[in-house]
């Protein structure tokens, strides 16, 4: 049996049943239900933004009519109830009946090529919009008629009540006539886009350039008879991969789709790196919109849904953890070997009991600390006080990973901090017990700092457990599955060898570090070399800070903080760096958190992604950063000129 974690999402897309067996409803609850409650999912343009692997195409595939219909028929599926519940909450179903007729149109390079045609902008845009609409019409009707669900004669197009005459331009109200007209238009326009040398404007056929606006005309799709009687469906078009378009094409398309005259439900799915570098950095659609252009202000007319990143990052992290658990358990249930052994939860395979360093290493550490105590001239009484402080913290510490080695690590940090905080005295002053300028406290930060230092110094396992797995995947479903896949495969091997299936922390830690390194080596996206240079550059400076004896940032930094204003100027000042950042963000190598207020200053944090954090051996704590400038970033990638 192959490991479903190692299969790519696209491998499930061909077969609806296979797809439905692995799809999890969690993203629908997380990202879409709140918008559905506000009633803004199907009455206006919805733009869904997320990085590769965040689940955009999965959602689009799920909402296709034929997928929903398969789900509706397969009432015995294990996740049937949860999926139907989620779809009901999102307004796609009601009383186990489908409300939408969804179709997914991937915006492949073909549509981008219209921008290269040697015609006026209006003509190029018009051709692309007509092609999109004709294909949407074809797909809606094909969805309804596929697998003989409904005969095309039984389908009727319901036009807008206020524009009954407009139905003529789409071929009337009979589904067959509307389908035929859409096919004609598709053929004509395809020929223009695909031609080796584009035809002259004057030779374009009437059919390809005349008015054709089914999105404005079609109100509903009506099935006159069927097993469930007559039904009406709201047409939904999902334009996937919109980032492939030229940014002006995209902007014009969004403006067009945002118009209130459009009656069909319309969603646009896109990746972050597809927007201009500026938009990816500034995180704003409004900047994209030309202020001089007529048309709606996008922010008001558009529902924007960000998959995996938004302001409330703590809540996002919690939501993703729960979604990832659910997804992993669903995948695990597909593997017979775990089913037979009664294992239904990935978390149960990941031991979280701490794995301290060996006694010999512990003794070595104790000796080092004793030497350090002498060097720093710390009296036994001060040491005792610090030890008490640590003991007091450990007795109340949650989480429990405060074994002897961690306590020694904490003591070392506290001694360093104590020595650093002592006021300077002259050579001839009588040595009396000095008080530090600030009290030295043991807390979770110090403990985490000690653990991470022990990882680097003695190889103490640091990355283990379900939460680490989730945090390491930067809230990205595909990355999570890749990381989890390695651990699941290991556990499978252990079962086959009649060993305990649960993986000890040391094994998890080792495998995750190897896997993340492999994943980084396998990066094949544009500008990957410079992105890698950027990641390595940030990581090396962060490690240096993390390993400082005082562990001033606890578990250490994992980001560079650039003054917000300076960061906003990057596209103009360092365009090459902006490109590198764009691809880095788009492919989860880095993340940018803007408007981060610290020390009365606004910062833009260029954070390492989870994969890079594990590979480098850093902590996950968000908000810990090194103060740097845009120039520092540019220098790392050799783009300072």
């Amino acid at each position: 049996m192959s490991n479903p974690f190692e299969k790519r999402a696209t491998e499930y897309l061909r077969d609806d049943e296979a797809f439905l067996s692995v799809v999890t409803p969690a993203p629908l609850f997380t990202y879409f239900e709140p918008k559905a409650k506000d009633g803004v999912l199907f009455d206006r343009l919805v733009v869904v933004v997320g990085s590769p692997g965040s689940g955009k195409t999965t959602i689009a595939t799920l909402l296709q009519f034929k997928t929903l219909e398969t789900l509706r028929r397969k009432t015995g599926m294990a996740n049937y109830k949860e999926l139907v519940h989620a779809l009901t909450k999102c307004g796609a179903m009601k009383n186990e009946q489908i409300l939408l007729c969804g179709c997914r149109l991937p915006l492949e390079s073909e549509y981008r090529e219209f921008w290269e045609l040697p015609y006026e902008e209006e003509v190029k845009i018009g051709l692309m919009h007509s092609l999109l609409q004709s294909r949407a019409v074809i797909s809606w009707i094909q969805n309804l008629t596929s697998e003989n669900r409904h005969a095309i004669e039984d389908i009727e197009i319901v036009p807008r009540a206020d524009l009954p005459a407009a139905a003529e331009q789409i071929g009337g109200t009979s589904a067959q006539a509307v389908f035929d007209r859409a096919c004609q238009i598709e053929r004509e326009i395809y020929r223009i886009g695909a031609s080796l040398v584009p035809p002259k404007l004057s030779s374009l056929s009437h059919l390809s350039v005349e008015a054709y606006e089914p999105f404005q005309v079609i109100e509903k799709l009506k099935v006159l008879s069927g097993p469930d009687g007559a039904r009406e469906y709201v047409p939904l078009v999902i334009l996937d991969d919109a980032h492939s378009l030229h940014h002006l094409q995209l902007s014009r398309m969004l403006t067009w789709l945002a118009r209130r005259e459009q009656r069909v439900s319309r969603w646009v799915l896109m990746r972050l790196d597809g927007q201009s570098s500026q938009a990816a950095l500034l995180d704003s659609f409004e900047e994209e919109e030309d202020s001089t252009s007529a048309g709606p202000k996008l922010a008001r007319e558009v529902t924007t849904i960000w998959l995996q990143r938004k302001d409330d990052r703590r809540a996002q992290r919690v939501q993703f953890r729960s979604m990832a658990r659910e997804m992993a358990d669903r995948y695990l249930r597909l593997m017979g070997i775990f089913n037979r052994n009664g294992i239904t939860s990935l978390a149960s395979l990941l031991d979280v009991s701490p794995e301290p360093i060996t006694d010999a290493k512990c003794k070595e550490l104790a000796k080092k600390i004793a030497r350090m105590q002498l060097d720093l001239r710390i009296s036994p009484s001060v040491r005792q006080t610090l030890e008490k402080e640590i003991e007091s913290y450990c007795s109340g510490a949650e989480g429990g990973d405060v074994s002897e080695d961690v306590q020694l690590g904490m003591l070392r940090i506290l001694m360093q901090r104590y020595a650093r905080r002592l006021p300077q005295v002259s050579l001839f002053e009588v040595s009396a017990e000095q008080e530090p300028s600030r009290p030295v406290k043991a807390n979770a930060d110090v403990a985490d700092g000690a653990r991470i230092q022990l990882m680097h110094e003695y190889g103490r396992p640091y990355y283990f457990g379900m939460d680490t797995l989730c945090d390491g995947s930067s809230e990205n479903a595909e990355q999570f599955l890749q990381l989890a896949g390695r651990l699941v495969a290991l556990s499978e091997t252990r079962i086959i060898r009649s060993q305990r299936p649960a993986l000890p922390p040391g094994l998890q830690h080792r495998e995750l570090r190897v896997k993340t390194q492999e994943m980084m080596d396998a990066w094949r996206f544009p500008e990957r070399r410079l992105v890698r240079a950027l990641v390595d550059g940030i990581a090396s400076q962060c490690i240096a800070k993390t390993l400082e004896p005082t562990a001033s940032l606890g578990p250490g930094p994992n980001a560079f903080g650039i003054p917000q204003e300076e960061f906003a100027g990057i596209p103009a000042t360092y365009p090459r760096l902006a490109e590198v950042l764009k691809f880095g963000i788009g492919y989860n190598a880095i993340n940018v958190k803007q408007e981060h207020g610290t020390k009365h200053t606004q910062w833009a944090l260029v954070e390492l992604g989870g994969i890079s954090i594990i590979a480098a051996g850093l902590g996950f704590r968000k908000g810990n950063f090194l103060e740097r400038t845009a120039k520092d970033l540019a220098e790392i990638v050799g783009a300072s000129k």
Partner: protein
Amino acid sequence: MTPPRWLPCVDHRPSEVKSFVADYFGGQSEPCLVISGAGFDPRSGAVTDLLRKSVKVLHAIFIKEERPSPDPILVEKAKTSLDNMNRDLASSRVVSVDVFATDGAVVGGRTLLARLEAEGLESYRDIVVDLSALSIGISFPLVKYLLQRTAGSKTNVHIFAASSPGLDNVIQSQPSDRASVVHGFRRVNESYGAGECARLWLPQLAMGRQPTLQRIFDEVRPHDTCPIFPFPSSDPKHSDRLAAAYLSELEEAWSVDTRSLIFAHEEDPLDLYRTILRIEEERKPAFKQFGGSMLVLSPLGSRMLSIGSLMAALDRDLPVYYVEARGYEVDWNAADKILPAEAIIRHVWLSGEVYPSM
């Protein structure tokens, strides 16, 4: 059965090419045009050098493929290569083509053809396309365009390619982020209205191209896959190594049946051409009742096999999918050692006086 367009085909093996060029081109006084890539590729100048020795009036168009932020070493190598190629010609022009638009879209093929529209090509009796250093995104549309433009005229269109499989392995492309169809070739989903046909993908395997081919797979979403292995090949173990390198793709991602492997002679484009045509013919009746059959080609790696794929795509109007390179990484130490020993030149006569019935 539709007869193959190039059966018989006039072509010359590496051992015959020099004498063919001397006999055929050496005996003519009319001008000849060579269209060649002016890149860093060490094979860039091989065909022009060969023609220069025999052709009396040789004109040249050198296509310079511009990619974002090129490696300075490659730029320097390309400049040196162009200087060498530019010697002793009746005339020459350098046509710079931006392979990518500013937003990263692949526009090279379309841009080149728009530029060539203004060129007077009809005055040449022979047009030679040197594929040695041209990328697929440029060379495939170029050849298709030349065949279309010269159809019905007396102009002969030839393709030449200097190949060294070892060199193909040391030049690694940095793939862009998505697969696309080669400009001017058919798409897999050209007509939503016509419904879906059975798609068989024939990827040409090459070392280190797994992510690239996976990207194409995701775009094409074939119903079945028959990977092409270069065999016989100069390195007899090459196919074994490819099979090992692609094990997870073959077994898991693409679900390839072990009976579905295609072996094509590494140095004989016609072998692959005929194989593809045979597969196409055999599938036609089988899938006639199920919406039809469509073969999808993805020529990567060996130049010679790419020529076979190009000929099949031109003959049967097949889709050709690829991932454009944003740049190249070359192991120059290895490249410099390989070239002198391995580069071989092959010729295929595509259209003109030798095919009176075309």
